[in-house]
């Protein structure tokens, strides 16, 4: 072991990510409800790009303890709708340089992303996605089974199985990153620029006066906010109700699994649309796996045996060597799913109250672009083109953004 590393380990006290908590102020220019990736990214870009620094992030639990810590850390832009591809393309672009920008290693790891297909329908969708991606400046291509086998030799390429691998949509830009580090890095840089991050601070009531929220009541006191941003994932419908409006969002658990850690064997991220499973290997060596969202709404982060069973069968068909691995953990996140599987970003029926919600199964990969665009909107009062299609209004005007390449949902 290099002597310097030993000295560092024994000698230095590492600076904490966040400064010690202080009392909640009585008013802020912007209050962001929800201290997950999206809330923190919004705060960070408000401070960095727009000089808005009198900002408080209120988090009812601990920093990034919700879906930011519960996703499978996949970053990709190979969506299907024009709006989706453009938005997530921007997000991948921001992710690429985020470590150096934040001076915090988020362990961004470009892996390549394979969406396998096993029948003609799957192949058609792959071609469609490849064209849509190319038109919107995102690199995706359809590759045959030989190319799949070269990129991922661990895959079971036998033809005498229920769903033989015929080929894949290959998205070289697909990547993973350490999700906690993304939140910590954003939180640290934001707080260095003056943003206050208050954990263990839950919004318990709102006073609505003249079409806007005059005061926010929390378990640590009451405060005023020039503008409010709601980034609370599974709690979105409940918080919106507190603010006085309905959201077209259903709350459904999305479960994930990790195996025991082993040496690196699986480089790309592998997804099967037909089989509704996905897998990647983390930097720690654990296989991170997921399947479909639960079949019915439930406001709980519990995990369940049936989902494990549904996921494991297809997974073992794709990767028979996994049969000898043990699962280390299984957990759930509370996904806020819209009916067109696209997020909701924009103004709300309440004045000066902005929404970042409906992230469902795609929140983590959207963190930088979501925060970037939300910050611009909150600071300028104008909706950036990048997110204009994702307004809440689209459900009234029936201009939905059908995102049929969202993970973990049947289409």
């Amino acid at each position, binding site marked *: 072991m290099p002597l310097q590393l030993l000295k560092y380990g024994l000698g230095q006290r590492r600076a904490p990510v966040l400064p010690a908590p202080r009392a909640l102020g009585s008013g802020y220019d912007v209050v962001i409800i929800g201290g997950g990736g999206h809330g923190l990214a919004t705060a960070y870009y408000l401070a960095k790009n727009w000089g808005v620094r009198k900002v408080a992030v209120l988090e009812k639990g601990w920093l990034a303890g919700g879906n930011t810590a519960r996703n499978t850390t996949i970053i990709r832009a190979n969506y299907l709708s024009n709006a989706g591809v453009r938005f997530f393309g921007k997000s991948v672009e921001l992710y690429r340089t985020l470590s150096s920008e934040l001076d915090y290693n988020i362990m961004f790891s470009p892996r390549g992303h394979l969406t396998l297909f096993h029948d003609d329908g799957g192949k058609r969708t792959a071609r469609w996605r490849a064209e849509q991606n190319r038109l919107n400046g995102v690199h995706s291509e359809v590759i045959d089974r030989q190319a799949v086998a070269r990129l991922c030799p661990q895959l079971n390429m036998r033809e005498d199985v229920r769903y033989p691998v015929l080929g894949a949509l290959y998205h070289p830009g697909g990547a993973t990153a350490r999700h906690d580090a993304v939140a910590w890095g954003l939180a640290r840089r934001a707080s260095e620029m003056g943003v206050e991050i208050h954990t263990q601070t839950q919004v318990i009531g709102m006073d609505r006066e003249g079409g806007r929220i005059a005061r926010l009541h929390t378990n640590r006191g009451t405060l005023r906010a020039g503008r409010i941003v709601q980034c609370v994932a599974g709690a979105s*419908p*409940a918080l*919106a*109700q507190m603010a006085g409006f*309905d*959201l*077209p*969002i*259903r*709350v459904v658990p999305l479960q994930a699994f990790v195996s025991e850690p082993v040496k690196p064997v699986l480089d790309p991220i592998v997804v099967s649309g037909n089989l509704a499973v996905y897998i990647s290997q983390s930097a720690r060596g654990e296989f991170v796996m997921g399947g479909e969202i639960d*079949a*019915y*709404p*439930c*406001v*709980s982060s*519990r995990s*369940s*045996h*049936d989902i494990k069973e549904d996921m494991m069968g297809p997974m073992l068909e794709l990767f028979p060597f996994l049969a000898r691995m043990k699962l280390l953990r299984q957990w759930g996140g509370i996904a806020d799913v*819209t*009916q067109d599987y696209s997020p909701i970003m924009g103004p709300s029926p309440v004045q000066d109250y902005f929404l970042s919600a409906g992230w469902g199964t795609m929140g983590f990969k959207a963190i930088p672009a979501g925060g970037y665009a939300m910050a611009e909107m909150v600071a300028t009062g104008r909706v950036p083109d990048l997110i204009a299609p994702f307004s809440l209004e689209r*459900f*009234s005007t*029936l201009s939905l953004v059908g995102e049929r390449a969202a993970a973990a949902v049947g289409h």
Partner: protein
Amino acid sequence: MLFPCTDIGERPKSEFRWGGYLDDSAASQEDAVCAPEWRRHLWGGKPGGVQGEWWFHHPSEQWYIGFRDAASERFVTLEPAQACLARQREGGTR
């Protein structure tokens, strides 16, 4: 996990399919397709608490109506849809 039915006893949850929320008289107002009530019916979610929901039981091919807590997943009641609706029409309690 077992679902407690009033008429067929406890059945595994894999036998059931979720069929949407129970509420919404708006769904019967055919002329109001673009009305907010319809949007809520089609796309609306629920913030939590006990909700009425439709459940289809595959083995018996019967619809059930259940009142279930969205967080704990505990059923208050789960009974054949016809019986539940008939009682509601008579103005009885759940």
